[in-house]
Structure formats: C-alpha cells, structure tokens
C-alpha cells in the first residue's frame, strides 16, 4: 500500500515537473472557457469551480477564434456557444482578453442568457445571422 502511494506521488510529481503553460493560448478541444452571460448554468459552473470545456470546434482548423461556434461540456450537459473573447494574440486594433469568453446558445441558435456582462470586441459587429442575437445582448463594445 505504502509502495503504491509513493509511486502515485512520484507520478504526480513527474507530471508536474514540466511546464504546462499554454504559450499560444489557443482555444482547442478540452480547453476551459468562461461563460460571460447571465445564464444560470454558466453561473452554476463557475460557482462549482468547474468551468465548461470545449469538446468540439465548428471549424476545420479545430482552433476557435473570435466569433466561432464551439460545443461545450458544462454541468454534465452538451451546450453550444459562441466565442466572444480570446486570450490569443490578435491583429492590431482587435482586443485581446485575459480569459477565453463564450456565450451559451440553445440548439436553435437563441442565446440562453439575457445579458452579457463583459465588453465584446467591436469587430464582431460585422457578423451576420444568429450572431446578431448575441450582439443585441451586449452592453459594451471595445
């Protein structure tokens, strides 16, 4: 038993001995995201300390950028969401955020929450289709 414990400890230490810093801050599968609308499910996930994970990105690159649709695993459910803010380095004039922000949507494209609490990149205002519903929830643009 003791031996097993020691093995386990050494394994965890080994896992920690290399850097896990994500240098490019890419939003890929299994990355954690912050839900920035006032939906109860997003808030509950944040309170529980288990923010949603990206389990699929709806584009060919499999790296989500501003305005992309992703599939989240959050509170034991699968929810679609739009990315409205990323940590990754952006072009000049496009804001970069300290967290990866998403806004949850239903399967029919309607947003789950009723208000977005953080600023939204102004460049997203050029988006059309379902995204306009999200823009109407926004309070601030940068």
């Amino acid at each position, binding site marked *: 038993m003791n031996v097993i414990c020691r093995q386990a400890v050494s394994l965890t230490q080994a896992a920690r001995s290399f850097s896990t810093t994500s240098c490019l801050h890419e939003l890929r599968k299994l990355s954690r995201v912050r839900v920035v609308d006032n939906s109860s499910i997003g808030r509950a996930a944040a309170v529980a300390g288990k923010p949603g994970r990206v389990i699929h990105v709806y584009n060919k690159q499999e790296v989500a950028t501003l305005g992309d649709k992703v599939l989240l695993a959050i509170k034991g459910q699968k929810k679609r969401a739009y990315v409205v803010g990323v940590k990754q380095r952006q072009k000049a004039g496009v*804001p970069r955020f*300290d*967290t990866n922000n998403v806004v949850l949507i239903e399967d029919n494209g309607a947003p789950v929450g009723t208000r977005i609490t*953080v600023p939204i990149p*102004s460049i997203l*205002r050029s988006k059309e289709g379902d995204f306009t519903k999200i823009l109407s929830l926004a309070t*601030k643009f*940068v």
Partner: protein
Amino acid sequence: MALLAHVARGCSRIPKLQLEAALSVRFQSTLSHNDTKARRARELRPRRNYLLNDEVEQHRKSLLQQSPEVEEIPVQQAEANVPRDFRHVMPEFLPDPNPLYRDRVTEKLERMDMYRRRTCIDIPEFYVGSIMAVTMADHHAPGKQSRFVGICIQRSGTGLRADFTLRNVIDGQGVEVRFDMYGASLQKIEVLKLEQRLDDELFYLRDAAQEYSTIPFDFEPVPLPKGATVPVNSTKVKLNPRPWLERWERHELKGVEDLNLPEKKYRRARQVAKPWERWDLMKRQRESINEDEEESIMKETYMETESTRRARGRQKASLKKTR
C-alpha cells in the same frame, strides 16, 4: 648596344606594371586554397545593398554631372542640439539591428513615410507606463469611431511596423489592445498622463490585482509642467499568488514587490540567469545599431519632428486668431 636599348624600351614602365598585376591576379586565383565560385563572386560584387553618403556625394559632384540642371542641394547643418536620450523618445525610428533585415534604402524610405504620417496625426511622446487614449476609425460603431483608454504596457516594432499595447480592466475583464502606431485607421493619440515605470514591459500586470490596471474611460488628462522631465512612477506592484503566466522571478523586474517564493525557485532562477551577457561586447554590438548611425538617424528624426511640431504650433496659433 642596339639590343639592350630594345630591351629597355620593351620594359618601359606601364606595360610592365600591368603585366605584373595580371600575373599576380592569375596566380592568386589559381593557387588560393579556398578559392570558390562564391568567394570570387563576393570579391567582384561585395554584398552591400546600400549606398554610402560619401560615394553618392562624390558622384553627384563629379565632372560628368556638372550641368546647369543639377541643383545644388543645401547641406543641412547640424544646428539642432539633439537631446541626449532622444532615442528613448522615438525608438521606432531606429531600424532593426538584425543584419538579415538591414536595408538602408528601405529604412530611409520608411522614415520618410513616418515623417509624412506625423504631419497628418500628432503622435506624442509616450513611454511604457503612460496612460493613453486612442481614437480609432471603427466601421461598425455608431459614430464610426471608437476610443480606448489604457496604460501602455509595451512598445515594440521598428519603422512603419511600430506598435504599442494598451491595457485596461473594463467590468472586471482585463482587455488589451495593440495599435499600429502608423496605422491608417488611427485618428487620435492622446497621452493623458505622461510617466515612466521602472520596467520596459509591464506584462506582469496580467498577474497582478485588477486595480493596478483599471483606468476609467473618463480619465482627466494630467498636464506636465513645461520643461519638466518625465516623472518615473516607482509603484511596486504586488503580484497575485502563483500560478502565473510567466516565471516572473526569472525576469529582473524592478517594479514588483517581493515575490515570496520558496528558495528553490530563486536558486533555479540563478541557475538559468545569464549574467555574462552584460560583458559580451560583441553581442551588444550585434544587437544594436552602432553609435554613429544612431546619431545620424536621431539627428535627422529630431530635425524633422521638430519642424513638424513647429508647423503644427503655427497652424494652431493661426486658427486661434481667426476665431
């Protein structure tokens, strides 16, 4: 006698020299052990994609050019006393020292474009740590423009690609925007509070409490008294506990409070430090523009920007009069 005279005539001076030169060249090129095609090409055409000012001047003043159409260009005298640390005021005018990217002609043209841009938009003096506001054309915004206020955390790039990054916290969300200093969509750059910090880059603000980088959008400009030197803000930032985005103990940060890390971390930081780089004169030489070139570029920049500034002052005065 006649024969000797003949020989003497045959060995008259000029042909003999030419012959010798030709022979020596032949011998060198055939006997040299590291004689390659590339080497010969290099000797014939030295790799230099710029013209020396002296050379240009020499050709311009040569007898072939002496015609009434060639105008005499007045040489600008060094009447300007360039301030000692002017390169810190406008660092983007110094080219990238990497020899792979050096191209004197392009650099010169870029600088001319930068001066022209500076006649259209006032790009004031600012430093990392200054609080700034940038107004930018925004196609989608209702007023067709958007304004962002923040603290400058980085200045980078050279020439027309120079940029700076502003950071602010809006509704509890850290936001950073990078602006191209000479970008066409920039409409106005204001420096609300001109000051310097202890460090050249303030990326550690991402790992500090939000109040260190929170600046209200209606921040009132703090004017600096005329003739005053730029103040240095010696605030020491207290970082959040780890994990951090970078291992800050390995950076020589001056504007950060004691990090309170276990001794192990500091030991490792000492192990990976490179204190000898300070003594490496040639490393410094390779990573910087040499003093003479820097001086000439800075003199040119100072004179151009000063004349732009004076012209702008005159314009303002005339506007006031007409009002």
